[in-house]
């Protein structure tokens, strides 16, 4: 496989508050490749969104990157570690939007209601090009057409509240791609949308990925979306990656008990009517009361005494397939 365009190494992002430290991202590593989609999956609060914000260096205070590297291969060929750049500096700002685009999870509130969508879209173009006003407007209309917004020349002057959720998310995608970035981070892009719209938005992302050879990082809690979109998958639990590998391995030969539980809890149309949906026992622990040892052990059906004491190391299972679980540690040792 070619060199990754973005590679995250052992990223730790903590929120330090008076009550204690929340380890939102606690050691994740993954690579993004042009033309491929990396799915990041996990329950709410497992650090998916914070990972995305860490890459763009827009983690809100009191959160900050404690350690780790985020290496980006820039358009000019040089490689830069994003964690070393000043957050509000010129370099980081030209990377935000310019080289990495973000589609955020709430289309309803991700656009300002006080500005027209054109105003915000043209701003995204203006920040990364030197085009004239007229050219920027033309390009904005083209972008709206590209993401499938009907009558883009009129729509450009509408406000976000005049558009449906699906159309708003299309605008968000147009905005994320306005300055032709090579990496697209989509944070739960379809969560707030109904199923038909969801499929359309996913198709759109896939089409644009092919046209532009985008590296896509798709964050979701929906295993169905992962199955449909991802080439590689990272499964996260409480800020840690518990398993990662090619999508086929994850779905057909899952190793970590958490991945298995997630897959079991997908509703199936083939299931017996009125049968109970499998759930994961227990609930996500409070961020300040994180269990010791393996973070998943209180909810794990296969736990052993060792799980409560030591944090499992990552074990290589197959090609590009690793998991962090004591069940496989014995084999490796």
């Amino acid at each position, binding site marked *: 496989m070619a060199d990754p365009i973005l590679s995250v190494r052992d990223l730790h992002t903590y929120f330090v508050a008076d009550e204690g430290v929340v380890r939102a991202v606690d050691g994740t590593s993954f690579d993004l490749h042009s033309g491929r989609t990396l799915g990041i999956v996990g329950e709410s609060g497992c650090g998916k969104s914070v990972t995305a914000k860490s890459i763009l260096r827009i983690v809100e205070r009191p959160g900050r990157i404690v350690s780790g590297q985020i290496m980006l291969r820039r358009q000019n060929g040089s490689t830069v570690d994003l964690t070393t750049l000043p957050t509000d500096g010129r370099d980081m700002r030209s990377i935000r939007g310019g080289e990495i685009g973000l589609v955020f999870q709430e289309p309803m509130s*991700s656009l300002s209601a*006080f500005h027209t969508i054109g105003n915000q879209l043209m701003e995204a173009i203006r920040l990364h090009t030197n085009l004239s006003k007229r050219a920027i407007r033309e390009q904005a209309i083209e972008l709206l057409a590209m993401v499938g917004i009907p009558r883009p020349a009129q729509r450009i002057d509408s406000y976000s509240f005049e558009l449906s959720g699906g159309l708003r998310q299309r605008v968000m995608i147009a905005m994320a791609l306005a300055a032709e970035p090579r990496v697209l981070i989509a944070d739960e892009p379809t969560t707030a949308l109904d199923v038909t719209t969801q499929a359309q938005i996913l198709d759109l992302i896939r089409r644009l990925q092919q046209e532009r050879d985008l590296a896509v990082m798709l964050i979701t809690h929906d295993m169905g979306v992962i199955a449909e979109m991802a080439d590689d998958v990272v499964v996260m639990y409480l800020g840690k990656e518990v398993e990662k590998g090619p999508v086929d391995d994850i779905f057909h030969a899952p190793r970590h008990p958490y991945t298995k539980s997630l897959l079991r809890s997908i509703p199936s149309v083939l299931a017996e009517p009125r049968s109970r949906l499998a759930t994961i026992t227990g609930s996500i622990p409070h961020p300040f009361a994180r269990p010791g040892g393996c973070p998943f052990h209180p909810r794990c059906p296969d736990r052993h005494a060792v799980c409560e004491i030591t944090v499992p190391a990552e074990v290589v299972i197959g090609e590009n397939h690793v998991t962090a679980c004591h069940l496989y540690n014995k084999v490796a040792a």
Partner: protein
Amino acid sequence: MLTYVLRRLGLAVITVFAITVVTFVILHLPPVDFVTAYAAQVAASGSSISPAEADAMRLAYGLNEPLLVQYWKWLSMVAVGDFGRSFEYGRPVTEVIGDRLWLTILLSLGAIVVTWGLALPIGIYSAVRQYSIGDYIFTFIGFAGLAVPNFLFALIIMYVGLRVFNTSVGGLFSSEFQLAPWSWAKVWDLAGHLPIPMLILALAGTAQLVRIMRANLLDELRRPYVVTARARGLSERRVIMKYPVRAALNPFASTIGYLLPYTVSGSIIISVVLSLPTVGPLLLHSLISQDMLLGSTIILMLGVLTVFGTLLSDLLLMWIDPRIRLGQLK
């Protein structure tokens, strides 16, 4: 949009009419009338007026007629711009109010401008740098500003002015200009006297607005559209000034509605303390002496100011908030 404006205008006219009715009724609530109060006042000063004289006065002022008739007479006078004569001063009401009206409006508008000019940047600073030392200092000053009554603050400033700077803070004119006709020198003299009363009047409102601005902006700063604006590569300063501040501006526009009459009526005590030639003290006096026509006129004026202020803030809101302009929010 036009229907919105027209509806607001129609409501404004009806509201002003309702205010005149209430004003008139309230002024007639006390069991004694102006003549009785006046007779008591004269008696207190040693002389007296005979019952015949009192009746003659009542006849002259039309105080014997039914309330409805009095109201109708007053309203038809006001409609053509004649506010009648003040019982107490024996001069036309417009003449008694005279320059006081313009000075009051000048002072009020000045106070509003000072309020906004201070509250907006301080509110933004306090929200963006939440829990910083600066935020704590402004918060402390803000609560002190809310807690300390304005007139006390006025007294303190007068005291300090007299003791430390040896200048009299009261009034809007130096003594030599008090009764002089308008001239450039008098305007200049006024300009020198305005800032301190303006500041005192603005203090409480500023403290309140800073709190509102801070709270609103803190809410807005956490919205997803701020994150997406940052993700576009906008600098932090531009992100904050263009998006969340804009969204948090609504309460500023709505404050004109109450700030306008507040600075007139709420400033009565300050005006008395600082002996400002504004409408406030005049209103107080007319209510004590039951000077009906003077009191009615001032209250009517306050009512019109409130209604006008509300109308102004509605139009301003419509201008800054597209959701209102396009009829998405009621």
